[in-house]
């Protein structure tokens, strides 16, 4: 995304408090709280005006985000955040658009839309809240649930290997692909900041805790299992985490290396890939501007016999 900061400098300074809306109703310990705070921080850091910002979501715990952000918002339907956001992006290129979507919302019911949102490269930040489970419907196997995890729908253990969201995005030619974790505050904010500043569909995978239905999904108290992608053009890692985890130098412009690193997802964090590509909304705007203007009062003249 690019900003409309110039015109907004005149306006009131945005503070964390300004961005509070109704009180969240998530469970205690839910990772969505830290995502909420992180997105607010991004807005404050970049002084994004709330009235020019639209948070769009689907259904699920992640779907509640727009209600808790004091910006404009669409809490849409299960899996459909991208179609709704497409309408906003196409109609109003002046707005900042953030999409919030869970693992089931993104990769199951909304899979087709995600496929096309990525390949159309429309200008927005897409945050995939990955807790590897269906939360709001109470613990069913999701597309990213690890094989073997017993759930309400697959009590004998989840049957299939999880979908790799990073490989999925890379395979579709995404122009921005990153992975972070909500409990790594600085890494998270820096990642969505880079995503926001990228023009195109910025795909951010976020490891998110679900203490209620899938507490073992992410070991947030240790970083020993984590692999961090490091590069001068990438996202920096906090020293504390870097000391524990593994650091791998990876150039985000190297697609082949990105695919290779993605094999170890969901244990890999950082900026996988970034490339400047034409955006769908940009192309549409350009064609609109270049179209020969016609007199609307003569619209029927071409059909005279």
């Amino acid at each position, binding site marked *: 995304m690019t900003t409309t900061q110039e015109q907004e400098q005149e306006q009131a300074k945005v503070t964390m408090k300004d961005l509070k809306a109704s009180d969240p109703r998530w469970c205690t310990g839910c990772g969505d709280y830290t995502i909420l705070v992180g997105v607010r921080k991004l807005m404050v850091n970049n002084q994004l005006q709330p009235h020019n910002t*639209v948070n769009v979501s689907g259904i699920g715990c992640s779907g509640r985000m727009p209600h808790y952000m004091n910006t404009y918002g669409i809490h849409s*339907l299960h899996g459909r955040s991208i179609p709704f956001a497409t*309408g906003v992006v196409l109609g109003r290129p002046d707005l900042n658009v953030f999409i919030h979507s869970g693992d089931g919302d993104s990769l199951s019911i909304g899979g087709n839309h995600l496929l096309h949102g990525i390949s159309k490269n429309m200008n927005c930040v897409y945050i995939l809240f990955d807790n590897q489970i269906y939360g709001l419907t109470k613990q069913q196997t999701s597309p990213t649930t690890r094989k073997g995890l017993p759930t309400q729908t697959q009590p004998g253990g989840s049957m299939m290997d999880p979908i790799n969201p990073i490989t999925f995005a890379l395979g579709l030619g995404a122009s921005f692909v990153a992975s972070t974790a909500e409990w790594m505050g600085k890494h998270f904010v820096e990642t969505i900041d880079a995503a926001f500043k990228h023009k195109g569909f910025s795909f951010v995978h976020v490891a998110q805790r679900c203490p209620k239905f899938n507490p073992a999904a992410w070991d947030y108290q240790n970083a020993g299992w984590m692999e961090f992608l490091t590069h001068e053009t990438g996202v920096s890692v906090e020293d504390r985490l870097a000391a524990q985890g593994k650091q791998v130098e990876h150039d985000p412009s190297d697609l082949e290396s990105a695919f290779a690193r993605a094999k170890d997802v969901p244990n890999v964090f950082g900026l996988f890939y970034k490339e400047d590509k034409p955006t769908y909304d940009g192309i549409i705007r350009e064609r609109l501007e270049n179209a020969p*203007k*016609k007199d609307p009062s003569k619209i029927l003249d071409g*059909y*005279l016999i």
Partner: protein
Amino acid sequence: MTQKHVMRFEVIMDAGNGAQKAGDILIKTLAKSGRYVFIEPIIPAEISPPKRTPHSMSGAIIRVADFEISNIGSSTDLMLFEHEILLDRRLEDRDYEQNSIVLLDLAEEKRAKDAYATAIKKAKDLGLNVFTFHMDDDSLAHIKGLNGNGKNMYYMGMLASIYKISKEEMVAAIRSTFKKLSEEKLTKNIAIFENGYKNVSEILSDTFEIASAKENLTGEKILLDGNTSLSLGIIDSGFKLFAGYPITPASTIMHTLARQFASYGGIVHQAEDEIAAMGTVVGSYYAGVPALTATSGPGLSLKQEIIGFSMVAEVPSVIIDVQRGGPSTGLPTRTEQTDLFAAAFGTHGDGGKVVISVATVEDCFYAPHVARYLAEKLRAPVFILSDYLLSASYKVFDKMKTYQLDDVNDISDEILDRFYINRLPDTIEMVKDNQATPGELEKMRRVTGLNTDKTGNIVYTSDSNQRSHDVRNEKIHHVRRALKTPEIIGDTEGDLLVVAWGSTRGVLDEAINLARKEGLKVSGLHLKIVYPLPLMLKEVFSKFKKVTTVEAAYGDPLKVTPLATMLRSETLIDVTNGLATASGRPLKPKMVLAKIKDLV
């Protein structure tokens, strides 16, 4: 030469051989000379089905009159066939009368002697007058030189001669239609046309003529089909974004807009699926950009979830549904009026939507204005129901007035009158007070499909849900109260009232007028806005001994058709489904007339 007031003829060829083009040229020329014309194309659902098969049937049915006509009529007086398989197939539609004329090209007879003999015998046994012909050698040589193209020129020549259409004007029309062809090819085509024109008298000595209607010779005339008219109406009514997914027979709306919309500041978004198209419409409208979608059959089923969202979130949306034969994928290129319930009640849960229908190609141009007006005033989904018949039927008529609608409150009374509705109140209560558009300071409107209170916050209390229903239903009641007495054809009392909606208006009008000429006390009532229904309907119905409907839908004594069901439930009057046909073909005035006689 026989002078006639109305007649109908058709040219039927294998798909891809130019029958549609021939139809276009014939009706343009007829219309320019002051005749009233109506054309129904016959189009296969497949693209290029193998030639010389029944699936390849393609053609143009043309009705001409010296008075204003509103439908394709009951039967064809003269049919011209490229070969015997098409004759055999077309007879199955039973669109002929005793003594209708069949002209059959014998070009393929050598390789199908038996089939020709069988088809000709079948036609003769049905009482048709069959005339066979061969094209002359000169024409065949030209056709060979044109790689097999040009047969349609010969047939056009035959028809122009039989129907006394000016040869010079036809040649001029051919030249203007094919102006991109090289002069050499054009000359060959015209030579074939002229041969057909000259030779036809050797096989058929009858000629017919429809007089020009003087009043129809003045003013500018346009040729439009229903879908093109809808597309242009979308532009004139101020929409700025169209999102759609390819589906027959709605796709041509997207095609027309894709070529033209950008020149008027509009965006066409080809979505990844029907659901996405609907979501983008709502997203766009939420962001303050008027948007709509067009779909058909299965596409309507897919959109339902988001249509419900549009209603609850109070984000306007407009959905055009070009009805085709159903259920399921059904008949993609045949007509039906069976999506009434799916439109009015389709999404889960109970909530009102407005359903506008279109009766004519002219209505198609203005329906988007009304739909946008209602959608934005109510902040709710509004349907425009067209159908295959109207989408593909062409008509020549007086050039319409354009409006370039911007603010919906400026909608013209003339347009509202056309749809028998008054203006809505200036302010209409919404479930949520905040209806701001992104960019407005400090409003921060957030929408959801969940129940909310006035503030827009999610609330599950019993009172608040009841209130949301009250407010949403009151919006629909505003429309109910604004609806005027619908169009009544004939007297306001009598023995029988026949009710129709949408594209069957033309058939209704013609049948009622025929019945009244025979002295029957019968009237017609036509609904443009078909949900909600106007409040005085019961009163109107009660002035008639019987009330029945005409619908392109299935009905039998135990299964009531959609419109009749709706009328019964809203008026508690014993409305029967008098004429219900789900053949995929247009209803015929004569069928309706026969039914009227049964019922009176």
